[in-house]
């Protein structure tokens, strides 16, 4: 592409976009818009407060009733989260076949959405290699991350979002892993483990993860029982 100086860019922009200067949207601004925003904002604030209170109450109840169920202190338990959770009744994402892998199962829960991957060709070069995709809502991270946002060398973007290679795997020891910020403050992870695991395949698998409802991507298998975020994913086999 030709490099153009700032002045030339200005002239080019004026030529190309000049017709839109002075553009005014059709219709008048709705006089009710501020009022609607106030009402919606009040609802949002109430919901956030309610969710925070419910989370606190649940945490207290869990600490009192189920002390043995809490992760050991300093063991990288999940951080306290905001109000954002996934709908556990349906997958929030679709995982396509990519990089030689295809989804074997999908587990939906409010705190993590997990797809287990197997090689598309069980007898091919990826035999003995498997994959895991984990998608977290804003504020949540895998237990192995010790509550720290993914850090590492920059990886190629995933759907225009920044990504990182994880030098220290957080899902499975010995795996090739990458993470990308699928929306601000929310991270997705891909973990490939076995003789066929490499970064190129890992990136391709990440590119195959799209929001549920995206046409053109084969359905993932039906969601199964909710996973616990602290559970180590079972290899899908294959």
């Amino acid at each position: 592409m030709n490099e153009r100086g700032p002045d030339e860019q200005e002239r080019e922009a004026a030529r190309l976009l000049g017709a839109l200067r002075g553009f005014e949207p059709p219709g008048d601004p709705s006089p009710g818009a501020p009022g609607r925003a106030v009402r919606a904002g009040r609802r949002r604030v109430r919901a956030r407060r309610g969710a925070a209170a419910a989370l606190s109450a649940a945490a207290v109840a869990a600490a009192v009733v189920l002390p043995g169920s809490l992760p050991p202190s300093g063991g990288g338990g999940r951080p306290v989260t905001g109000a954002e959770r996934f709908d556990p009744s349906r997958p929030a994402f679709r995982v396509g076949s990519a990089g030689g892998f295809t989804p074997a199962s999908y587990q939906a829960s409010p705190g993590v959405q997990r797809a287990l991957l197997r090689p598309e060709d069980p007898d091919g070069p990826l035999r003995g290699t498997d994959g895991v995709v984990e998608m977290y809502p804003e504020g949540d991270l895998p237990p192995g991350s010790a509550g720290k946002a993914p850090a590492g060398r920059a990886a190629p973007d995933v759907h225009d979002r920044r990504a990182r290679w994880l030098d220290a795997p957080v899902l499975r020891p010995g795996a090739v892993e990458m993470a990308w910020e699928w929306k601000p403050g929310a991270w997705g992870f891909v973990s490939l483990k076995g003789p066929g695991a490499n970064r190129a395949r890992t990136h391709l698998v990440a590119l195959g993860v799209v929001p549920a409802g995206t046409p053109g991507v084969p359905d993932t298998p039906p969601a199964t029982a909710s996973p616990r975020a602290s559970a180590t994913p079972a290899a899908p086999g294959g």
Partner: protein
Amino acid sequence: MRPDDEREYVAYVSGALPGLRRLAHLLCGDPHRADDLVQTALTRLYVHWRRARAADDLDRYTRRILVRSFLNERRLAWARVRLTGAPADVPHPAAPGPPDVETREEVRAALERVPPRQRAVLVLRFLCDLPVAEAAEVLGCSPGTVKSQTAHGLARLRTLLDGPAERGRPR
């Protein structure tokens, strides 16, 4: 929110609404989506009003909410991005002469086919007249990224409006 704060919020939003609608329409193209985007941004502004009011530049803070809402929405709608591009979507080269309704619609249609982040850069810089540094602040990226996105966005727009074989043809 206290009643005084809420009154202040309503007064600010009432004044800022025309500018926000214009920006949203330029970003979205579709008037219904643009109005939804404005409503989303205003709701977020309400929730964060205390922080917004303390910002150095409330207008810039509000624009940032709107632009980021637009980009977030587009990111989660990858399918729409992927499925555009049919030949019928490509506008014909605009006729020379002063901007008329037809020309304006052609430019709007072309702008809508520029990738969202590049489109946001073009709108902020050349239609809202923000300097590079301010556009970078609104978009949450570096000035260098704004410059490169500007170059890419203009190149894309040029191809859409002039056609690949007619680059540089004066309109």
